[in-house]
């Protein structure tokens, strides 16, 4: 593997006043506790009287419940739907026309619609004993035909997941911009492309500790959650409680990736149980539960035609996309979060005059799909970028050339594309050119002509995408799901000793926001990062926020922190002016000091005086104080557009099917980077997950809807030898709409790798007549395709 010399961007952003502000590669504040085993995750919470819950889950994908038999000695420790009086099912309804509503009972009633669906809740002093009780409960189930194939599920006569719908389609959407003008294009390529169902697999599963405080009349739910305020709203709806009666605390979280962004039936069940029993109760998702019952995403199918001119210019795209949404609509993102977005994001960063896309969100007897890093984009990028390589092959052009011919140009920015997505800024062709240069396509072509000595074939592949992030009200209101993001708030408070406390409603589960938000505050106020505390993950302590999802936290919470700190700084400046006996107009706040012509006073002194020695302040001082909450919204709320060009070189053994990534380059533009090292970490981590999508991760099902990868020996997560040390290059085109020009970048790393790697594999195997259009690319699929191609060649000969 080549070393990253010369390409890694180590540039320091100049505004970091003491190397701590925006642009500084600051080591993280949160690291020390995590490296000493002092982090506190949900499973680490200790409460007196805590008891454990294990669930009885459906072993069948689709069945009618005839009976639940609980042994006499365990009555009182086992709870079923019949016990949960007044608890409402989880409903996540989209406002898009035609959306069919599913109701997910928190404990199954009548029917079970997925393997792993909750049927009964068992309580015991320890998890092991709770599992003993769960094992003693017998279910009498009448099996029904399982809906396991989303394409068959669309056909008339299919078994029905929700009988009263009459079909299995949550939602169908259609979008068209005059496709007829593309139909006479000289190049027309049609394929079917699919991506596997995946599990997000953060190393920590979900977990819940619920307790009820009778004095406060308040339920406290500790939950490994990305969006505590949204969890609270959902809980209140299901439990029929006032939101003020519920406090959600999300402590350290062991990775989210979207999996921890939804309201769980387990959260509702445990809340009810804590109130019923009067003592704390706990449920920790184990790996089996994670894989079987609660984390599914990304099963897409595309039937797609791309029209182009002989020179590779795109004339149009026509696509029918189907997404397997699983049995229920998850709160708050709904069952159409992937399919409905496909239509608007499929064109990506490309210009084209004609476009048509029809999408289907299909209900099946599988776990509901949840948002996973890169929501819908990973599949869309896979489909379109594989197709563009086929266009290149038809046109006899280098794949890179076809991209450059069709990418939106920097002089067109800001740009509204064919689906009216508003691109804020950037130079997409430059990213692609840099990636092509760094991966050195010419040298790969030369090597390919020489042939490989070890019997392996090498190939090069590229892909490019755009990542809309920090979607605002205008984007989500049309979609009409239970959560529409509006303004983001942050609270900033100077403490009497001159420290700074920041409260934000987003959460951090690896993103390093305890550090990066402190950098933002430092940039404004000059307070030492070591003296800044970020308080997050607690509805009682933080302003309302929709939480952390959609690569929004740095744009939104960062913007809110900056805004709050500016106001706080203004207050400090005015107090400082009083202390300096200056006209406020004549002093400035700089590097943590209020300065005037005849002296300066630092923030520490200002805070000390304000809180501890108010007698030193004149009577006419503004009583507003040193604690503010401010809201923020970008100048335009249609989202920031970050993007990256990825390029991969692979070696493929056509006889064993192994794929090795020899080199990987990412040229990324995430706007201004608050902490480049943290951004690098997000990209490297995203790449690892993208490699998982490309080569390893797959949750297969059999024809009765049984999930077949139920351990990490079957569901393969990439390890250190499967992920190369990629070479990164940053471009940093500021967004014109956000504080500091930042853009959201959390998901991007996971979007492009499957396409780049598949294109590289196909490039390597194209001389053999092999074309792989399905992820993951497993050894078996490679060898099967190679043998099929050889057989075709033989029969043709």
């Amino acid at each position, binding site marked *: 593997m080549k070393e990253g010399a010369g390409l890694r961007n180590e540039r320091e952003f100049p505004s970091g006043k003491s190397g701590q502000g925006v642009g500084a590669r600051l080591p993280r504040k949160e690291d020390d506790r995590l490296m000493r085993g002092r982090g506190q995750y949900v499973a680490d919470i200790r409460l007196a009287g805590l008891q454990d819950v294990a669930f009885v889950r459906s072993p069948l994908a689709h069945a009618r419940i005839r009976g639940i038999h609980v042994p006499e000695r365990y009555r009182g420790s086992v709870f079923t739907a019949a016990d949960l009086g007044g608890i409402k099912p989880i409903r996540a309804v989209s406002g898009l026309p035609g959306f069919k509503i599913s109701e997910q009972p928190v404990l199954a009633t009548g029917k079970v619609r997925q393997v792993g669906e909750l049927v009964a809740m068992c309580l015991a002093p*320890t*998890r*092991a004993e709770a*599992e*003993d009780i769960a*094992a003693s409960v017998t279910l009498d189930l009448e099996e029904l035909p399982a809906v396991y194939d989303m394409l068959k599920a669309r056909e008339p006569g299919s078994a029905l997941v929700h009988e009263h719908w009459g079909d299995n389609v949550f939602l169908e959407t259609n979008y068209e911009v005059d496709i007829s003008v593309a139909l006479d294009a000289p190049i027309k390529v049609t394929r079917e492309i699919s991506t596997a169902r995946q599990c997000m697999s953060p190393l920590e599963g979900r977990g819940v500790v619920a307790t009820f405080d009778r004095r406060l009349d308040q339920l406290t739910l500790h939950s490994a959650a990305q969006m505590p305020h949204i969890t609270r709203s959902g809980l209140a709806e299901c439990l029929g409680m006032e939101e003020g009666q519920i406090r959600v605390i999300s402590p350290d979280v062991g990775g989210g990736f979207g999996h921890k962004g939804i309201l769980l039936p387990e959260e509702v069940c445990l809340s009810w149980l804590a109130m019923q029993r009067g003592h704390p109760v706990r449920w920790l998702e*184990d*790996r*089996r539960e994670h894989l079987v019952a609660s984390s599914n995403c990304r099963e897409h199918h595309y039937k797609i035609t791309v029209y182009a001119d002989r020179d590779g210019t795109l004339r149009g795209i026509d696509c029918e996309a189907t997404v397997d949404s699983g049995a229920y609509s998850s709160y708050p993102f709904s069952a159409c979060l992937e399919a409905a977005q496909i239509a608007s994001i499929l064109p990506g960063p490309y210009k084209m005059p004609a476009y048509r896309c029809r999408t289907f969100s299909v209900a099946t007897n599988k776990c509901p799909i949840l948002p996973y890093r890169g929501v819908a984009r990973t599949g869309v990028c896979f489909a379109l970028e594989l197709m563009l390589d086929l266009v290149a092959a038809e046109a006899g052009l280098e794949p890179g050339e076809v991209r450059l011919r069709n990418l939106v140009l920097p002089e067109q920015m800001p740009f509204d594309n064919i689906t009216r997505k508003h691109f804020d800024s950037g130079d997409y062709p430059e990213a692609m050119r840099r990636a092509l240069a760094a991966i050195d396509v010419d040298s790969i072509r030369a090597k390919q002509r020489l042939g490989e000595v070890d019997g392996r074939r090498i190939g090069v592949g590229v892909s490019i995408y755009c990542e809309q992030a920090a979607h605002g009200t205008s984007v989500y209101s049309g979609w009409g799901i239970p959560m529409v993001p509006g303004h983001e708030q942050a609270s900033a408070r100077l403490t009497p000793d001159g420290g700074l406390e920041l409260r934000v409603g987003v959460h951090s589960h690896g993103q390093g926001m305890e550090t990066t938000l402190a950098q933002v505050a430092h940039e404004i106020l000059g307070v030492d990062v070591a003296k800044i505390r970020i308080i997050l993950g607690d509805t009682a302590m933080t302003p309302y926020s929709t939480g952390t999802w959609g690569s929004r936290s740095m744009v939104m919470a960062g913007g809110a922190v900056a805004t709050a700190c500016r106001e706080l700084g203004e207050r400090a400046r005015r107090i400082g002016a009083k202390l300096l006996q200056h006209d406020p107009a004549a002093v400035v706040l700089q590097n943590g000091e209020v300065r005037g012509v005849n002296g300066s006073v630092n923030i520490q002194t200002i805070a000390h005086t304000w809180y501890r020695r108010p007698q030193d302040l004149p009577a006419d001082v503004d009583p507003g104080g040193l604690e503010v909450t401010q809201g923020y919204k970008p100048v335009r709320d249609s989202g920031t557009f970050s993007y990256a060009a990825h390029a991969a070189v692979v070696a493929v*053994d056509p*006889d*064993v*099917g*192994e794929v090795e990534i020899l080199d990987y380059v990412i040229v990324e533009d995430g706007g201004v980077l608050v902490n480049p090292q943290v951004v690098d970490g997000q990209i490297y981590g995203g790449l690892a997950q993208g490699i998982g999508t490309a080569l*390893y991760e797959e949750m297969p099902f059999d024809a009765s809807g049984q999930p077949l990868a139920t*351990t990490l*020996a079957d569901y*393969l997560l*990439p*390890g*250190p*030898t*499967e992920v190369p040390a990629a070479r990164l290059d940053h471009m940093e085109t500021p967004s014109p709409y956000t504080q500091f020009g930042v853009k959201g970048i959390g998901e991007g790393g996971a979007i492009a790798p499957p396409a780049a790697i598949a294109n590289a594999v196909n490039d390597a195997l194209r001389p053999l007549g092999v074309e792989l259009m399905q992820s993951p690319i*497993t*050894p*078996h699929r490679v*060898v*099967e395709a190679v*043998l099929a191609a050889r057989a075709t060649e033989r029969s043709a000969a």
Partner: protein
Amino acid sequence: MKPAPFAYERPRDLDAALSMLAASGGSAKVIAGGQSLGPMLNLRLVQPELIVDISGLAELKRAEVSRGELVLGALVTHADIEDGRTADVTRGAMRGVAANIAYRAVRNRGTIGGSLSHADPAADWISALAALGARVTLRSLAGARTMAIEAFVVGALESALRAGEIVEAIHVPSRAASAHWGYAKSCRKTGEFAHAIAAVLIDPTAASARVVIGAIDTTPIVVTDAAELFGGRIAGDYKQCFDIRVADALLAKAGIDDAAQRHIHVSVLKRALLEAAA
């Protein structure tokens, strides 16, 4: 994901262990390092009434060379072999195999006897030791018996162990100075179960070869007289003489009806041959 309750016994010596097993009437499971049984217990796939922990038995922790063969007690770990804490009569062959079994933390507790007893077709030792011509000694209260590795493994997760019997020792013959060794496996990722294994021990001087194709979801294919794979004779040019059609036919006969799978196995065997000939 917690095991069903079980009782636990830690016998003081081998005889006590065998007595406990005999008394349990088949309801007990033996545990040594627990690297295969542990996950199955946690998943409640296995729910024994009694666990007999033999991991402390000194009699099973020996490693000595006697009469030209290496005798390894069942409790010798993969890491013991990897690190060279045991003598080696295979000129590095066993060390190489041991070092690539699962992960270091697993190798520190996983034992060679446990791996054999579990008889997982995708595990390394059943294939590697069969190619090396090793034998295994089983002991019960009734006494001891010794058999070739290829006779010991009778199917997927199925060994010749009878109720009340445990693996006591593995006997590995010395590898001749003229014998070439090749071992190749294909795993979807480092340390995971192999989906193809090939082990070859070829002695062109003696015109003999043992060839094993493993990880085929059933008993490994052990070819003790492998001349047919090399056009009828074994000589220094075996690499060139390898007949993939014969290997493919062996796999088809073993019930591997998926052509891609067979192709992968044959290709991995080719790799092992290349390594041996290198």
